[in-house]
């Protein structure tokens, strides 16, 4: 990414998430709460500093985007109203809105199905992983 692209993406993440990463005081309560912590390469308490420091490229290519369970534990407990879950969701949006950014392909679905899968799992996977 060029410097301009990085700046643009930082602004986009802030705008989509509606969060102010500068409010973060690095207390780590998000990471202390996250059920998916061990699955992530960039940890919840790092999301804010990645955005502040313009390390957007690393962030959007991080597997954390796909490991977040959207359980809102970090959002509920963040004492500074930074709400890291929203930041990572915005980074995911950024990826998915690019051409070819879909994380789930329609042709893969049949393989993933079993007879118990509830409809809402498919619906939500579509909404979470595709534009």
């Amino acid at each position, binding site marked *: 990414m060029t410097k301009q692209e990085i700046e643009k993406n930082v602004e986009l993440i802030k*705008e*989509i*998430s*509606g969060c102010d990463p500068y409010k973060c005081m690095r207390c780590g309560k998000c990471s202390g709460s996250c*059920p*998916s912590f061990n*699955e992530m390469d960039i940890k919840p308490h790092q999301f804010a500093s990645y955005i502040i420091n313009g390390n957007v490229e690393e962030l959007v290519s991080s597997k954390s985007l*796909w*490991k977040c*369970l*959207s*359980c*809102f*534990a970090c*959002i*509920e407990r963040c004492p500074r109203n930074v709400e890291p*879950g*929203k930041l990572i*969701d*915005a980074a995911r*949006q950024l990826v998915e809105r690019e051409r070819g950014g879909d994380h*789930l392909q329609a042709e893969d679905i049949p393989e*993933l199905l079993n007879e*118990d*899968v*509830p*409809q*809402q*799992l*498919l*619906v*939500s*996977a579509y*909404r*979470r*992983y595709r534009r």
Partner: protein
Amino acid sequence: MKYSYYPGCTLKNKAQDLDRYARLSAAALGFELEEIPEWQCCGGVYPLGTDEIATKLSSVRALNHAKEQGQDLITLCTACHHVLKRVNDDMKNNEDISTRANNYMQLDEPYKGETSVKHFLEVLRDEIGFDELKSKVVKPLEGKKIGAYYGCLVLRPGKILEFDDPENPKIMEDFIRALGGEPVIYPYRNECCGAYTSLKDGGISQERTKLIFDSSSGFGADMLITACPLCMYNLNKSEADSKVPVYYFTELLAEALGVKEGE
């Protein structure tokens, strides 16, 4: 009392029990669930992005329908409950989203979050009252040690959903008590089961559901109840040794009210 009812996709399909028993119980308790005609799927996930408008419209349609009927909007599925409540909050408090959504909708009168969205459990607690419910129980669930599994979607974020204390909820425990069962309080009752990722990534859900079953069984639960079809699926798929049966809360309700076999 009549409520607008939003069943959601899964209750018409894989989670028909959740729906069926709720209707039977509602009839026994003297209120009616009037299904919204031609409701559309809420999407199962609340779109967090502040610029997501189109993905919120199906919820707005349902909310506006309830408004036109002058009824509260009831849901059973925790995901629908989550999405509808949050979209409603946006329509009420987020001027930008509200204006843009209304521009799409072209309603006769703009929708501004007037409808009150309630989970079925909230109706039991706030409208019927657990004492009243208790008096209507004919087959109390005596001797049953039941763990409530809330999951995340029904509780968080607490300041928007205002369902119960997100860290220390008690509505389902009170519900179990009203049915004559013994609630088992265990700390993992509001921890995520990892459901959203289970389609592509079953590993986390296995890990999470094991923690949930270990904790609930450790504190002595013989069974779990849930309001979420997604959690139900995940918990059922668990390979944990400590696994106990999981029921929809409405099934126990119908059973206690003695209407389970009716139809």
